[in-house]
């Protein structure tokens, strides 16, 4: 509902909301609350930069897919 108020309620806006909310969630959950969990990904060879880039790429893919509906 909040995302609907900020970004509008059409399906494209949901994709746009995801693009903004997913990085925010990642920031609060991993960078602030559970920073040590990054070591799980580090041990798989994934750096901070790769994880952030993947979050944005997934957000953009979501946006594109939802725009096509």
């Amino acid at each position, binding site marked *: 509902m909040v995302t609907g108020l900020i970004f509008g309620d059409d399906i494209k806006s949901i994709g746009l909301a995801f693009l903004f909310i997913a990085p925010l969630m990642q920031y609060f959950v991993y960078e602030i609350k559970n920073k040590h969990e990054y070591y799980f990904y*580090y041990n798989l060879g994934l750096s901070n930069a790769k994880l952030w880039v993947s979050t944005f790429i997934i957000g953009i893919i979501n946006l594109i897919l939802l725009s096509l509906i």
Partner: protein
Amino acid sequence: MSTLHIDSITKSYDNKKILSDIYLTCKKGAIVGLIGRNGSGKSTLLKIIFSVEKCENKFIRVGTKIINNLADGRNLINYLPQENFLPDNIKIKTLINLFLPKENRNKLINNDYINPLLHKKNQELSGGEKRIIEILLIIHSNAKFILLDEPFNGVSPIIRDYIIQYIKETKSSKGYIITDHDYENVIHLADKIMFLKDGSLKEVMSQKQLVDLGYLSQTNYDMLIDPSK
């Protein structure tokens, strides 16, 4: 790929040198124990070797491959941090499938300590249960060299002994660098002991030397040599 070479590691905080031209090697099948007082830089050194901590200078090589970043060290060096690192809200079985290569998964799934926990989520486990899962995950990963930073934090003596035995049994296929605040664990486990003090690393040739280096008191040393005292 049988030797981990660490050379020229230099790290400073606020113009104070924490690590000064550190040189260390670890061969496959060897356990190197890293000891030192609190704040001496043991964890920092392990993080630099794992490429998650920046430093002024470093040279790290596994076999012929030079490790400059995390991606270079993938499947070569893994690191167990002091804190629990497994993500919450995910079942242990899923974490095993995500973390381990297919051929090693059954070793954990059939393990007597792990098997009853497979369908629980990480946040439902005690600190000791989390720790044993983390250690076994790291040991059975593809990495050739394992860095264990205080692996026995929060584990009961019986689990600690199990882990020590487990590391001894599996050490032929990997090299280990291990630190622990309980020096007895390291001394009994390691083939080679390195002492970190004032940013420099010295090999400890005898346990008596730990008294001379100011790491052990004479009383602790006497108890180590003869526990009946």
